C-alpha cells in the first residue's frame, strides 16, 4: 500500500508539470497585453515607455524559459507572484476568497450526498415504478439545469416571496461572515449557492448510486441473502448499499472538480466574492499570474482528489490491493 501511495504521488509529478507547462504556454498565447489593458483602462492614451516599465515591473521582459522556471519554483513554494492587475500577492488574493468558496463546496457536497444516496437507492429498489421514473427525471433534470439559472430562479423566488410576506424584498447577504461569528447570517448566504451547485452533483451521484445498486442487487450473494429469508431492509442497507457505494465514492471525487467549475458561474449569480468570481475577473482583466495560479490550483485539487479517491477505494474495498 505504501509503495502504491509513493508511486501514485510520483506519477502526479509529470501530470502537474505538464499542466503547468500548458497553463504557462496558454497564458502567453493571449493576444493583447496586460500592461496595455491596465494602462488603457484609465481612458487616456499610454506611451510605450510606460508599457516597457510595466513589463519590467512584472518581469515580462525576461526570456520565457526563465519565467517558466520561476513559475514552477513559485508553485513549489506556494508563491504565485503578484497579481498583474491589483499588485497584491496572488496567494493573499486567493486566500482572502477561499473560505467562502470552500464552505459552499463542502456544503454542496454534504447536500449532494444527503440527497443522492437515499434517492438513488430507493430508485433502484423500486425499479420501473413511478417512484423510479420521478427520481430519474429529477436526476436527469439535475444534469440538464445550468447552476447559474437555478441560482437566478431561486433568487427570484426568494425575492418575490419575501416581498409578498414582509413588504420589502430580502436578498441573501453577500459579505462573508465566518460561521462561528454569525451562523445564521453565514448560512443564509451560503445555503442557496450550495443547493444550486449541489443539485447537479446530487443528480450525477444519484444516477451512479442507482445503476450501481441495480448491478449489485443481481449478485449471487444478494440472492443467497434473500433465500435465507433476510428482510429486505437489511439486504439493501447491509449487503447491497455498502458495495454499491464504491463507484459513488469515485464519482464524488471526480465531480468535486466539476463543483469548482460550477462555483465559477454560481458565485457570479449570487455576487459572492469567492475564488470562482476571482477567476472570471482574472480572465477578463487578462491577469496572467492570477489566471495561471487559479488554473494550476484547480488542477492540483483535481489531481489530489483523484489520488484520495483511489486510496479511499482501496481502503473501503478489501478485495482491492494495489501493488
Amino acid at each position: 500500500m505504501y509503495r502504491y501511495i509513493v508511486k501514485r504521488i510520483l506519477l502526479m509529478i509529470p501530470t502537474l508539470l505538464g499542466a503547468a507547462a500548458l497553463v504557462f504556454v496558454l497564458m502567453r498565447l493571449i493576444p493583447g497585453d496586460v500592461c496595455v489593458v491596465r494602462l488603457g483602462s484609465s481612458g487616456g492614451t499610454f506611451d510605450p515607455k510606460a508599457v516597457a516599465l510595466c513589463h519590467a515591473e512584472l518581469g515580462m521582459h525576461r526570456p520565457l524559459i526563465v519565467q517558466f522556471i520561476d513559475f514552477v519554483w513559485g508553485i513549489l513554494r506556494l508563491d504565485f507572484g503578484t497579481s498583474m492587475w491589483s499588485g497584491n500577492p496572488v496567494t493573499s488574493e486567493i486566500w482572502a476568497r477561499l473560505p467562502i468558496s470552500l464552505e459552499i463546496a463542502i456544503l454542496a457536497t454534504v447536500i449532494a450526498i444527503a440527497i443522492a444516496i437515499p434517492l438513488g437507492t430507493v430508485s433502484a429498489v423500486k425499479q420501473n415504478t413511478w417512484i423510479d421514473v420521478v427520481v430519474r427525471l429529477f436526476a436527469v433534470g439535475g444534469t440538464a439545469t445550468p447552476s447559474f439559472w437555478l441560482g437566478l430562479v431561486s433568487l427570484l423566488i426568494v425575492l418575490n416571496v419575501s416581498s409578498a410576506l414582509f413588504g420589502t424584498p430580502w436578498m441573501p447577504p453577500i459579505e462573508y461572515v465566518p460561521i462561528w461569528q454569525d451562523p445564521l447570517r453565514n448560512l443564509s448566504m451560503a445555503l442557496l449557492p450550495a443547493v444550486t451547485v449541489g443539485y447537479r452533483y446530487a443528480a450525477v451521484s444519484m444516477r451512479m448510486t442507482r445503476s450501481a445498486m441495480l448491478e449489485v442487487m443481481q449478485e449471487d450473494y444478494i440472492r443467497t441473502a434473500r433465500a435465507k429469508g433476510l428482510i429486505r431492509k437489511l439486504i439493501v442497507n447491509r449487503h447491497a448499499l455498502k458495495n454499491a457505494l464504491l463507484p459513488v465514492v469515485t464519482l464524488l471525487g471526480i465531480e468535486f472538480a466539476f463543483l469548482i467549475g460550477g462555483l465559477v458561474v454560481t458565485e457570479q449569480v449570487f455576487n459572492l466574492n469567492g475564488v470562482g468570481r476571482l477567476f472570471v475577473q482574472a480572465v477578463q482583466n487578462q491577469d496572467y499570474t492570477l489566471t495561471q495560479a487559479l488554473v494550476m490550483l484547480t488542477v492540483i485539487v483535481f489531481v489530489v482528489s483523484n489520488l484520495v479517491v483511489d486510496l479511499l477505494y482501496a481502503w473501503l474495498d478489501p478485495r482491492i490491493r494495489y501493488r
Partner: protein
Amino acid sequence: MVTTAVQSIGAEDLSPNRATAARRLLAFVRNEVLATLGIVLVLVMSLTGIFAELIAPYNPTANDFGAMMEAPGWAHILGTDQFGRDLLSRIIYGARTAMIVGLTSALVGGAFGLVLGVGSAYFGGRTDLILQRLFDVLMAFPLIIMALAVVAIFGTGVGNVIIAITIPLIPRCARVVRASALAIREVPYVDAARALGFGHLRIILVHMVPNVMAPFLIMVTAFVGQAILAEASLSYLGLGVQEPVPAWGLMLQGGAEEFATTAPWIAIFPGLAIVLSVLGINLLGDALRDHLDPKLRKT
C-alpha cells in the same frame, strides 16, 4: 366499382402494417416514457433551430422601444426584454445557436477523440504512453476552466466558443474510446487484417472504428448536452457568444438579474429552454445507452 375494389384491397394490404406500426409506436411510448420524452424534446429543438425564420414571430434583434419589458401576452407570447426584443423569437433563434455550438463541438471533439483514442490503442507502446500522459494533463482541467482559458486566448464569439468547448472534449472521448479499442486490438480479425497487409489507416478506420461506435455514440450525445451547457455558462459570464446574436446563456445575463422582480420572465424562459433541450438530449443519450449496451438491453 373496380376502383372501389382496388382501393379496398389496397386498404386491406396496408392497414395491418399500419396498425402494427402504430401499435409498436404506442408500445414504445408506453414502455419508454423517458426515451419518448427525450426524442420529442430533441425533435422540437432541432426543428425550431432549423426553421427559426419560419417560426419566429419577430426579428430576434429588432428593438421595440414601445414594448420594453412587456409581460407575456397576445402580442409577445413570452414577453419582451429590457430592449423591447421579443423573447420567444430570441429563444427560437437561440436554439439554432445552441445547436450549432453543441453539435459542432461534440462532433469535432468526438471525431478527434475517436481517431486519437483508437490510434493510441492500435499503436500501443510509446505512442500510447505519450498520448495517455497528454490526455492525463488535459483531463486535469475541468471543462469550464479549460474553456475559460481558451476563451482568454482566442477571445469571444461563436467560433471561438466552439474551439474552447471542443478542446476539452477531445481527451474525454479519446479515453473512453481507447478503453474499448484496446479490447478490439487483440481480436483475431484485426490480426487477420494485419496479416493480409492492410495499412494502419485502413485497419483503424474500417476494422476498429465501427466496433467502438456504441460507446462513442453514447458519449457524443452526452457531449452535445455538455457543450450546450458550457456555451450557456460562458455566454452568461460574458465570455461566450456576444450580442446581438441570440443565445440562451447570453439572454440570462444583465437584464435577467437586474429586473428579477419586475420582469421575471426574462430570467425564466431562456433558462427553461436550456433545461428542456439538454434534458431531451440526456434522455435520448440514456435511451441510446440502454439500447446499445447489451447488459442493459431489456429482454
